[in-house]
């Protein structure tokens, strides 16, 4: 039961983080469309780092 609550919290946190990353990246691309490639790569990397964190927490809590 507590595991599930923890997993939910992780997903909420991760979701907020991913949303922030994606949103800011979109803003950045909208402001500077010519830098879209670089922003995208950076976004994916940061997203992956966040994902690693969330997955790590999920697996450790399981």
């Amino acid at each position, binding site marked *: 039961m507590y595991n599930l609550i923890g997993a939910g919290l992780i997903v909420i946190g991760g979701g907020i983080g991913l949303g922030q990353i994606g949103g800011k990246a979109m803003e950045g691309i909208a402001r500077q469309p010519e830098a879209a490639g670089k922003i995208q*790569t950076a976004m*994916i*990397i*940061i997203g*992956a*780092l966040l*994902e*690693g*964190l969330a*997955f*790590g927490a*999920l*697996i450790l809590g399981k």
Partner: protein
Amino acid sequence: MKISSLRIHFLAVISFLLIGSFASAQEHDVAEHHGGGAVDTQEEITEYTNHHLKDAHDFHLFSYTDAAGERQHVGFSLPVIVWSSNGLVSFMSSEFHHDTDGEVIVEANGSRFVNLHEHIYELEEGAEAVVMDEEHHPINAHKVFDISITKSVFGIILVGLLLLFWFGSLGRQYKKKNIPTGFGRALEPLVIYVRDEIARPNIGEFKYKKYMSFLLTVFFFIWVSNLLGMTPFGFNITGQIAVTVCLALFTFVIVQFSGNKDYWKHIFWMPDVPVIMKIILIPIELLGILTKPFSLLIRLFANITAGHVVVMGLIALTITLREQFGAVGSTGLSLVLTLFISLIEILVAFLQAFIFTMLSALFIGMAVAEHDHHHEHDAEGHEIDDVEDVRESFV
């Protein structure tokens, strides 16, 4: 000419392996074990999914019940090679008769083995059957060091052969002409992509060459393995924790061995901070060394596992929703949803390979980077963090 004859040869080997084994491996299985039996209930679906996610000692494609009411399994058996108390022992996995509950005891080389949820256990002296404790751990058997050609090992070898075949022929093409033709034309941009988008910007113009072999091999290995997991053969190579641990360990070892003086200095005596902070930072940085490969291996494993679970769950809709939507409705729904999620999984297959390679390159780049501590200052005199610092603070 050489290439085409080699291709035929290669295909012949593969098809011989598959067809030949199908013919010989059809066998009878009287008992209705779960894992081998028909899948109907929620529990059986969960069990089937879990079974798929695990490594297996035989190559099982599908099962059906024939006219005589007997379960027929289509697939082929793979060799089991274990290091037991009597030395190296090998036998074919067909001797277990698709049993994964530790009921069938195989005797080989003076040792007796059971297959318990795809882990090979060696029975201790005098034991006649596996005895479990309350937590379903056997008390009269112990795990053996299992270097069998399991389904995953088979898949790894297959991926390796595919890569060798594809890129080997691409490499040979350059001897005769400058521009590759055929399939090589699709592979070449991928190699250039890994070099120009992953290795060069992250490791640096002058040092990237040394790591290209590792990065390219790992990139294509993960990608092809991920895609192989999308095929109906039921491979789940990159969803095996041992495989991702191994891949991440390679990155870890390479990073530690290519770390220069600056890298170690940043770990054990962080420059530009007060002495107390230096001491506090040492354990944090040491932990960081370990968390980097850990996040690498967990990310790959979890993504692929999650993908397989979702795909299998959606396929299982055809069973779970049969009562609500009828056979056609539930199958249609399952088909549409599975198709949709499979497209995403194909993207994820590439993305995970890309991210694994990208982060490996990033970690290597951080280890070999020449730091200079003359940071640029902007107009107001604030320090502008360079990319390296930003990345470091994230990892």
